[in-house]
């Protein structure tokens, strides 16, 4: 599967851990208690808190799409708590079913149009941990947001 390989290559390039697994294995391995914040409606998994200044340890969220061209996940983040959690978690885990993987940036143009045509809207492309190279061009992760990111692709959905 060319798209998947392309996605994995690009996602690994930015230091993500990539996992491919079946739905059942995902349910076995990732338990509710492992995360301080969860928003994965496609998996009926929720755990809501409002992350504050101290940040949180970890967050699990579901992506609406993933883009093979760039290795990015696309997350509708108009929910403020979801946005705070993904901004402030030390470890970010993003899950999506393989069927949501698209080829190129332009494949999500319509989605962006739809999700931001109302009163408010906030969609994020996320490609790796928060990073900076502002001191001597040395790449350092976790400058404001997550220090690590894991991507889980469910291949039987």
């Amino acid at each position, binding site marked *: 599967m060319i798209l998947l390989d392309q996605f994995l290559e*690009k996602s690994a*390039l*930015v230091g993500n851990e990539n996992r491919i697994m079946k739905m059942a294995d995902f349910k076995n391995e990732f338990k509710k208690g492992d995360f301080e914040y969860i928003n994965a409606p496609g998996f009926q998994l929720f755990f809501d808190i*409002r992350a*504050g*200044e101290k*940040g949180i340890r970890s967050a699990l969220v579901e992506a609406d799409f993933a883009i093979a*061209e*760039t*290795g*990015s996940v696309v997350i509708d983040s*108009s*929910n*403020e708590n979801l*946005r*705070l959690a993904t*901004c*402030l978690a030390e470890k970010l885990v993003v899950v999506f079913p393989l069927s949501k993987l698209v080829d190129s*940036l*332009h494949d*999500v*143009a*319509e989605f*962006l*149009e739809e*999700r*931001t*045509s*109302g*009163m*408010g*809207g*906030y*969609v*994020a*492309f*996320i*490609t*790796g*941990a*928060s*990073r*900076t*190279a*502002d*001191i*001597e*061009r*040395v790449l*350092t992760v*976790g*400058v*404001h*947001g*997550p220090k690590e990111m894991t991507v889980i692709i469910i291949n039987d959905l």
Partner: protein
Amino acid sequence: MKIQTKIDEKLNDKILYQNLKGFATAYKASKENAYKGLDFEVLRTIVHDLKDRDLNKVMQQFNQFKENVEIHGCKVFQAKTGDDACRYIADVMKNHGVKYMVKSKSMTSEEIQLNQYLEKEGLSPIETDLGEWILQIANEHPSHMVMPAIHKTRQQVAKIFSDYTGEEVDPEDIKAMVEIARRFLRESYFKAGIGMTGANVAVASTGTIGLITNEGNARLTSTVPPVHIVLVGYEKLCDNFNQALDIVRVLPKSATGQIITSYVSWIKGRNISYKNEEGIKETHYVFLDNGRLAFFEHPKFKEALKCIRCGSCANICPAYEMVGGHVYGDRYIGSIGLILTALYQGDEAAKDILKMCIGCRACSFNCPSGIDLQSLISDLKLVVGKKYGINPIKAKVFKTVVAKPKRMKSLLSMGASFQFPLTTTHKLNQEKIIKMVPMLPKEMDFRKFPALAAKTFSKRFFREGYDQFSSHRKVFFYPGCAIEYFYPEMGLAMVKLLQKSGIQVDIPKKAACCGIPAIASGDPDNAKTMIFNTLDSLNNTEDYEALLVLCPTCGGAIKHEFLDFTKEDPDRYKKAAQLGQMVTPVGKFLEDNNIKFQVIDQKKVTYHTPCHDTRSLGYSAEVFLSSILGSQFVPLTDSNVCCGFGGTYSLDFSSISNGILNKKIENIEATEAEILVTDCPGCVMQINGGLMHQNKAVKVLHLTEFIENHLIVVE
């Protein structure tokens, strides 16, 4: 401070030198990687075209954007000037009784000097981008658009942090420094009453902005505080998401060599906000004019408004690499910085910095928005040159000598006869050079100057009977000043080679300068005279297969600048256009005519690509040479980076020119080649002069001389 003093200060800054040099090398490699498998030309044409619009169109986009956000209760303010924008933002802060405003990186806010304004009003903007924050607490301004603190070392940052925090900071541990920033800045998002961001794109169809960032500070800035202010220039507008994504595709690749940044955020209007009393975000859009709107109607300068602020035109600029953004630019930096300084702050502010451009055209070929930056700079140089005057000595020389072919010829041939006591033979390669130039300032003494040829090219051409050869196959050859007065052998080598292949070579009856020295110095009037002289000296095209040049800069002038300068003279314009199409560098002519060569010795050879070969004439002899030489050919690192010559530039900004040359020489030495071939007499003058000055035994040859001495034609 005078520009020369500033330049010297930067050139003596070893840290800056190392940082910028390291960055330039790393950047080129990662950018190439990021674009792998993609067609850069196609992508940048898309961006160029989507940004190609007149004032009417931009205002349509603006009105659509405005409607889309106002309908939901957002505020839109049109700021005519930078001060208007600053005042509006200060008022929003005051009306909310807010002291702290967190900011994510915005070059537009640097343009209007927002922080200074707010601080004067007793308000506290806090930069949250790491680089910007370092500079804010150090009280400095950015030296690069994407990497603002590139001029700082870790030790310097550690010192800034420990002064600011009162904590001890390990001067080697970058990770720990980033942690400090995380800790201090985290607090600020929560104490700030307002968050301000810029926008990389503003999508008219929905009223959405796009932010392209790595650190995640823009996400927090636009999320946590109850009020969001967006400061954006009109030029960031685009029609829809397809266009916005075309920009997202190229911007990170050209900016930092990343395929995409960690975050691209698409933000629209009024989101839920727990910190806002009404439970919903208050959002303001400040659209900045500050001179932009006028230029949407300018036939040429409207190009500058296509910039997507990737910073690439600084990253690949050899002159920027020597002095950094505190000198090379002003509020905006790099090649586009020179231009925007002139457009936004006025030509007075730009007149000195414009001269620092060496004219290598690397920026024009690297810009992901397809802006021909060098030609805009060249135009602006002419504007300020005419308005403020140019170096009076140069002006005089151009007017009384170079623009008068006859006088130039007699003066230089007199020079050739009387220079004898000043010349010597360099012991390494037996070339005739000037022993010492009387009263040459020390900083200009970084290369040997070739002696004037005893007899000019034209004189030898006619005297030695090369004009007697006739054939039905004919080319016309324009020698240009360097071949005419310094390097006749290069021209004669070509003539002999072509005649052997049965091709007649004609040359102008009268030698004349192509005008580039005057254009580069900002002297349009004399440039025009020179161009007219040259045009009139060139035969019409009908009889010839090609107009050959050995100096790609002259060739580029005929192809491009001649058209600009003859616009009001239809006859000359027509001639220039016809000639322009026939301009051919000699290597290309040989390749096109399938003239085959074989090498006759075992010498290791490398090749320097002259700027104007690839970038003005679309040709490089590298493939030609490497296919003939096989394993004897060693590629030169950064072969297509400028050698630092730039004609009179090497005298005006000798220290920058010398710095650029030294890098070239380092790369040449690393190849361990015995011969460096190039096909521009200017590059030969610079590189050979530098090598001789440093007593390095690499032989520098123009392509034609190399062919004459090291290759034979095979049937």
